[in-house]
């Protein structure tokens, strides 16, 4: 197993945001984590990425215990993440943003620049590489967020609502990008609100509610389970039309 969460719990001042979550991600999978607002998705995500350490339980990455490892240690071991609100370095260029990621595997500036340029090319940002990142709008920043994480050459990429706030057309392009990343051998864990994205990408989903896993399995089977529908206030999760107006 590439990633294992073993009875992970996280409490804030006595409030249990995540309660004894168990799940595994095999190399080459795309796993979606869904759940209503406040279900503990982001907290769980931060525990996996080393941003917060769990109050109880263990997180293993490629067999190694990373429960209390720092975020930079996670990156070094091959686990990259994006931020829900893009944490773009706005006062430097888009290329410089990606170079920060590329320096992890390429200590020399020329090599890091070449690696970053390849990633920008791949992410469709090559044309704007020399502009200040502040000039990018939300879709561009979300894309840059992914590019920067990819530049660290991860084996596992954690996407935290990387596609939220995009228009349907932009979502389609972003889904293509994620598929292409997966095709290149990167395992993905996707926290997402947009059901269309999860159904299009995930091979397996985990549903969280009140910090607990209430269901997991193949997307089509899981979204119609009564307890999952119940958690989403009784609404069906299956997109109704081709435009895919998700339940969120």
């Amino acid at each position, binding site marked *: 197993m590439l990633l294992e969460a073993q009875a992970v719990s996280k409490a804030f001042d006595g409030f249990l945001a995540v309660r004894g979550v168990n799940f595994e991600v095999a190399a080459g999978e795309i796993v979606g984590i869904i759940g209503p607002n406040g279900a503990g998705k982001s907290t769980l995500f931060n525990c996996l990425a080393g941003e917060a350490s769990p109050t109880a339980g263990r997180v293993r990455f490629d067999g190694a215990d990373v429960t209390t490892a720092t975020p930079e240690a996670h990156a070094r071991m091959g686990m*990259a993440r994006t931020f829900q609100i893009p*944490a773009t*370095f706005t006062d430097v260029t888009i290329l410089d943003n990606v170079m*920060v*990621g590329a320096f992890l595997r390429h200590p020399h*500036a020329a090599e890091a*620049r*070449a690696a970053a340029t390849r990633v920008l090319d791949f992410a469709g940002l090559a044309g704007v590489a020399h502009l200040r990142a502040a000039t990018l709008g939300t879709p561009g920043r979300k894309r840059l967020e992914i590019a920067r994480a990819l530049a660290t050459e991860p084996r596992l990429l954690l996407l935290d609502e990387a596609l939220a706030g995009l228009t349907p057309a932009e979502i389609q392009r972003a889904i293509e990008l994620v598929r292409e990343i997966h095709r290149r051998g*990167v395992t993905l864990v996707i926290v997402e609100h947009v059901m269309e994205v999860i159904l299009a990408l995930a091979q397996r989903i985990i549903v969280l509610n009140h910090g607990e896993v209430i269901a997991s399995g193949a997307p089509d089977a899981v979204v119609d389970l009564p307890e999952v529908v119940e958690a989403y206030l009784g609404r069906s999760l299956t997109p109704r039309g081709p435009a895919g107006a998700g339940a969120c």
Partner: protein
Amino acid sequence: MTRPAGAGPASRDALAHAVGLRRSGWRWTILAAAALAAPLLLQGAFYHRVLALVVLAAISASAWNILGGYAGQISFGHAMFFGAGAYMPAFVYTHWHAAPALGLPLGVALSLAIAAVVGVPTFRLQGHYFSMATIAVAELIRILVSNWPLLGAAVGLQGPATARTVWDLTFRGSVTYYYLFLAVLAVLLGVTAWMERSRMGYYLRAIRAGERAARSLGVPARRYKLHALMLSAAFTAVAGSLYVVMIGFIDPDSGLGILISVEMVIVTALGGAGTLFGPLLGAAILIPLQQTANALFGGGGTGFTYIFYGGVIVLLCRFEPGGLLAIWHDRVAPAFRRRSASAVRHAA
């Protein structure tokens, strides 16, 4: 993730990089020529002294800039490193009759030790803890030294009046100091320029822009902040040593006063923090003003300096935190930026 580089973007990138380097190379050549010729063009003891002090302020501000500008870790207590560098040459002369030049490496070593004491505990935390700790430790050291007879207490220490050997670094007139300082500044700018383009520069700017995001990309933020602090502290100590060999005297106010720390912040911020040229521009503007005020109003000049620094802080905060260089770029670049913005719209 490894796809052969598309020849187009990669070579375009390399070309833009080379053109940028050559253009900035020319600018620096002209600046260096002007700096070398300055004492010949501006004759007279007062001008020579002001020139030397401008370069000295440029050294200490450039040193502060490594940590405060590039890494975004604002220190209001760099006087402690300046003081460590300033006291050691006077100390080895007073107590051992040794050459003040010997005090320089001792001052650097002492400032590195202080940097570790301040940086190791505070850099675990993000935010303002480091800034607050710098003020506290610097004031603590100033009060300690003011009451420590070994370091001359409130009276201070003196250097040699006349040179015994060249290692006393005691010269008549300010021109020799000016060129000595210029050489040190050149080394510092060389180190900073190298750092700017290497992994360290990218990592420091990333830490400044967002430590959380930087760490998620594999930047060991704590270690890099500490490295920046040590590099910054070492060169600030060198500035202190250079100050004491030129002035020949050091006391708690001139070596460890809060105004010393504030001056580094203001000089850098006025010119443009996080740029190579910013501290030089700030020093070239502020130091002549400060020296003229001192010449005109005597001791009251210090009061004028305080008021002037306060005004500069207010104006920078209100109008342009990026300093004069940012104003320059924002006036010149708008046409370019309009073109860029339309390119982004096409791409995104």
